[in-house]
């Protein structure tokens, strides 16, 4: 007798329910991978109904508006201030802000550090692509030393433009901060590690432990003038030595 085996077809990876598809990003931009990752985490934690996502200016705001959650489009910079206010008004909702590196490190640095000092119970996702991507790739606070941009044609020089900005390391020693980490999405293994970081950061808000920030290093193939494949090598060789990966702070329970 022939033993019949039933073959089932399982969906491993599906297209998420985004409001705007296709996304407006350039080919090879890592932002799309990160928005998909955040969408997966929200779905796994069953937070979609109560989530409000704060977008700011720049490319990161495009994804925030495309996600299938309630969104607020703020001006360029005070994403953390808007998120703090919204969390105080609606303490039962889940609030997270998506910021670019220029938004967090330059124009919104004041509100970012102030929210961390106050220990606001919000989550911040930073996307560090080492340049101002939407306006043509000018020098941003996070540009590594020696990187050529339209405003630094000889490469970034510390005498002229200073040293790169490290957001999670800056706020990690503050008492109000519960979680600070940095990840990348340039390889599948790193992508899964970063997904775990986002999940932990979201749990800190649900446990009411305080401020959580996760920074992502991402590629900007258009403004780096590299192909998407070369961008992964550039991240490996130049970005990761400058911006170390890993968790800088992880508070397990409330100090009291």
């Amino acid at each position: 007798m022939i033993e019949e085996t039933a073959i089932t077809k399982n969906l491993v990876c599906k297209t998420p329910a985004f409001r705007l598809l296709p996304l407006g990003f350039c080919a090879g931009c890592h932002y799309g991978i990160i928005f998909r990752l955040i969408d997966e985490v929200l779905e796994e934690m069953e937070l979609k109904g109560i989530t409000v996502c704060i977008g700011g200016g720049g490319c990161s705001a495009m994804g925030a508006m495309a996600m299938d959650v309630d969104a607020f489009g703020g001006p360029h910079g005070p994403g953390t201030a808007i998120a703090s206010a919204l969390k105080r008004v609606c303490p039962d909702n889940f609030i997270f802000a998506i910021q670019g590196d220029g938004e967090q490190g330059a124009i919104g640095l004041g509100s970012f550090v102030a929210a961390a000092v106050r220990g606001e119970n919000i989550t911040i996702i930073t996307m560090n692509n080492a340049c101002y991507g939407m306006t043509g790739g000018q020098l941003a606070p996070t540009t590594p030393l020696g990187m050529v941009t339209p405003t630094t044609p000889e490469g970034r020089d510390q005498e002229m433009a200073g040293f790169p900005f490290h957001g999670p390391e800056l706020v990690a020693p503050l008492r109000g901060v519960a979680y600070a980490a940095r990840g990348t999405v340039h390889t599948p293994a790193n992508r899964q590690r970063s997904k775990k970081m986002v999940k932990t950061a979201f749990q800190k808000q649900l446990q009411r432990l305080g401020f959580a920030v996760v920074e992502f290093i991402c590629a900007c193939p258009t403004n780096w003038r590299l192909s998407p494949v070369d961008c992964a090598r550039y991240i490996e060789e130049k970005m990761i030595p400058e911006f170390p990966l890993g968790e800088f702070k992880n508070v397990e329970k409330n100090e009291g």
Partner: protein
Amino acid sequence: MPKKGEIIIDERLCKGCALCVMFCSKKCISMGKIGPGGIPIAHFSDPEACTGCGVCGWMCPDMAIEVYEYVARRPL
């Protein structure tokens, strides 16, 4: 040998960045097909080798890839 996996690439969403080609460990996706926008896009060139691991789906920045895996089970 029975098929282990299958992917479906949405031609309207693919922008031809080739990240899926770079990360496919079985090399069953290749570039070259011209899409509706007139640019070269990815297509599923070797359906026999696909294992349905889902890595191309995770790494697609444009959410263009749906991944299915076939699981064989003995009847109860």
